[in-house]
């Protein structure tokens, strides 16, 4: 298979944040835990049992090079060579890396894409739906999500599993909650925004049910250490739609009880407090394991020229 490496820097075609891919037109049902008129900030009840073992799951991805694939049919299609990794941090008194896996893939719509073997690493072909930068990035995102699910399922069972980002595609991990740091609030009923603004540190909103292209329970909670505006330090959590509202509320209580402990401080993390310490540490570790981008880029170019 012939291919050429795009001379432009690989990150030029701005990858898409998964969270911005969320369609904004979601239907929201706020009366699953309490009726809308009784909405108020909630604090986990005293009887809430803190989980003894929490698993934080996250993945990182990096485009090592943009490539052009010469197919047998004479068409030249764009693709990306990307390194991505997923891992888990187990917090059970100590925080330790429970598992981490690195993969590299050639994401491309070409039907006859082959594995690219470089002296440093090999890129496994992965089919993408389209040729646009968005669909290539989406394919990468999806594959990384699958890897995260594999990691989560492969780890010893934990009392709580926190998955960084929306739960989408990862609902089948039992007991997992999604952890969303950025918000699009336009679709929310006004009562939600009002209660969010009232949240004190460690408090959460009641659980509500969201349906867009997929369904899930969701709630907002405020982490300690931020101030200034009504949404400072607020994160949104998601739980699988297969739970009953009571189970979702119990999970929400547990999250409100334990997540503030892991909230980062502003001087250590620019995304504080929402970027939790274990996830930040995991991301650093995973990025390190992705390897040196300059070295991989050089290796890819070397192979492209040689082939």
């Amino acid at each position, binding site marked *: 298979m012939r291919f050429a490496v795009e001379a432009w820097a690989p990150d030029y075609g701005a990858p898409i944040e998964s969270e911005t891919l969320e369609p904004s037109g979601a239907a929201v049902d706020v009366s699953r835990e309490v009726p809308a008129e009784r909405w108020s900030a909630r604090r986990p009840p005293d009887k809430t049992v803190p989980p003894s073992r929490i698993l934080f799951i996250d993945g990182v991805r990096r485009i090592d090079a943009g490539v052009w694939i010469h197919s047998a049919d004479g068409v030249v299609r764009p693709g990306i060579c990307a390194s991505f990794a997923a891992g888990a*941090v187990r917090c059970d*008194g*100590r*925080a330790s*890396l429970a598992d981490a896996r690195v993969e590299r893939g050639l994401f491309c719509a070409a039907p006859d894409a082959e594995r690219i073997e470089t002296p440093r690493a090999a890129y496994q072909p992965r089919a993408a739906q389209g040729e646009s930068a968005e669909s290539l990035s989406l394919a990468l995102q999806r594959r990384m999500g699958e890897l995260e699910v594999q990691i989560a399922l492969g780890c010893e069972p934990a009392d709580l599993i926190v998955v960084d980002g929306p739960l989408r595609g990862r609902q089948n991990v039992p007991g997992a909650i999604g952890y969303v740091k950025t918000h699009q609030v336009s679709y929310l009923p006004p009562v939600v925004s009002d209660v969010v603004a009232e949240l004190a540190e460690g408090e959460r909103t009641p659980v509500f049910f969201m349906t867009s292209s997929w369904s899930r329970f969701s709630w907002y909670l405020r982490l300690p250490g931020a101030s200034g505006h009504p949404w400072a330090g607020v994160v949104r959590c998601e739980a699988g739609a297969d739970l009953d509202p009571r189970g979702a509320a119990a999970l929400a209580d547990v999250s409100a009880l334990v997540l503030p402990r892991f909230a980062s401080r502003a001087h*250590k993390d620019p995304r504080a407090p929402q970027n939790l*310490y274990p996830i930040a*540490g*995991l991301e650093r570790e995973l990025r390190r394991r992705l390897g040196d981008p300059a070295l991989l880029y050089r290796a890819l170019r070397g192979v492209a020229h040689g082939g």
Partner: protein
Amino acid sequence: MTEEDQRPVGRVIGTEDATPLEFWVAVSPGEYLQLDDVVALSRRPPGQEPVSIYGVVTQVRARHEGARFDSDVFLIEDGVLPAEVAEAARVTTTRFEPEVFLPPLPGTEVRRAADKERDEALFFDGMSKRLPAGLTRDGAPLWVNLEFVDGTRGAHVNISGISGVATKTTYATFLLYGLFTSGVLGREAHNAKALVFNVKGEDLLFLDRENALLTDAERERYRRLGLAPGAFGSVAVYAPPRAGDPAATADVASRAEGVTSFFWTIEEFCLEELLPFLFADAEDDRQQYTMVVHNVAARLKRATPLPQGGVSIEGAEVRTFRGLVDLIEAKVQDEDDAYVWAGRAISPGTVNAFVRRLHGAVRHLERLIRADVPNPERHRVALERQVTVVDLHNLNDRAKRFVVGVVIRKALDEKERSGQARPLLFLLVDELNKYAPRDGSSPIKEILLDVAERGRSLGVILIGAQQTASEVERRIVANSAVRVVGRLDAAESGREEYGFLPGTLRQRATIIKPGTMLLSQPEIPVPIVVEFPFPGWATRPAEAAAPTEGLPEDPFEGFPKP
């Protein structure tokens, strides 16, 4: 070699430069490397025989990987932030075999060196004559190549360290014990001699007494070095006579028997020109009166000997040092005699300075220079036993210098007269800074320099010690092939005299315990930390076991029989 020793303890890391002289090793989980551990690894250059690289651990560090801020340690210990503890050891290389100076490659397995590999790492394999120098921290023997002590390729040992905690003298005597009893000197051990000056307390007066406090564990350490624990076999102890005692009994408090008092007769003082040794202060050479000293010494040489060590000088009989000083004073100040005694055109001020100095010596030296005791030849320091201890501890500095200077000069003269380097004579001199200070010159300093520079060929080996090498004549320290450092104070350890110690060892010299020394010898590029066993001989009266010999079978021998 056991499986354990062969197991790799870590790998060379690639995040710090690996150089042929120094490299870092990441320590495998479940393993450890500590300072002074000896390690080995190999590298096979393309198309060549494998190269064995040996080294000594000179620094170890542990750190959190994954932490960016100092305060992250609290998060990590709190179980919030994931991090790994990584340990790494810096290795300073000692040897490449064969000598292909390549850096070890990152990722290479590093193993603990034991047995044969350890011998190669520390060059023991090439030492045909090994002098035990103590035990390294892992309990294995450290050897010094005798060829760098006995004059074959180098000579002299220099020991620095703070008084009291550095155990310099004990280490020096330990080396001596090894020289005499390990068999390293072969048949020569019988004839080799040592001259030891005891400068502090009565510590060295019990070299021939077994140490009652020696434990079995310490005995075992001696055996590991191939030594039989015990005391020195053949020791003579000399001490100055008690001041004011006409019978000249030895002035020691803790040992009653087997101590001989020493002094010089007026005859020896005059005929052997010992006068300059009275003027051995560092500043003396800048004074005018040295001319007077030499003129007077020349006149004294003409004295006529009388029985029992007295002299007659120009008709006057002299039997005491005070009498001699009075006579010299009269001569140099006499209008007629001053011309020949003091010298030409010597100003009265210079003569007075000389006389003042001379008088200052009387009180301290009159017990050491005398002709009022019968059989004075019995009180001469003679190097007949294997170890001769000369006690100086209750003499003042001026008298100490006189004794050290005169005794060493006589020993040197004898060696020169014999014309042979063998058998060896070991000189153990503590407080070298007193006798060979960095600045100025004096007769004693000249003699010690002579030993340092010519001792190799004369067969006179200086085992010198001082608190601070920076205060001792540079050439004496520089001529010592083996250098040993005990505890140093921080300011001293930073001086250039200790340039042979790498930075971490300099720091370490400020904290090491008594009984531990840093030893540098020419063949091993890194000084090695060495511990030596508790002395097998007594170092103070409380340790002395009852003498096993010395009491005559018939305690009344010599008394008239009834």
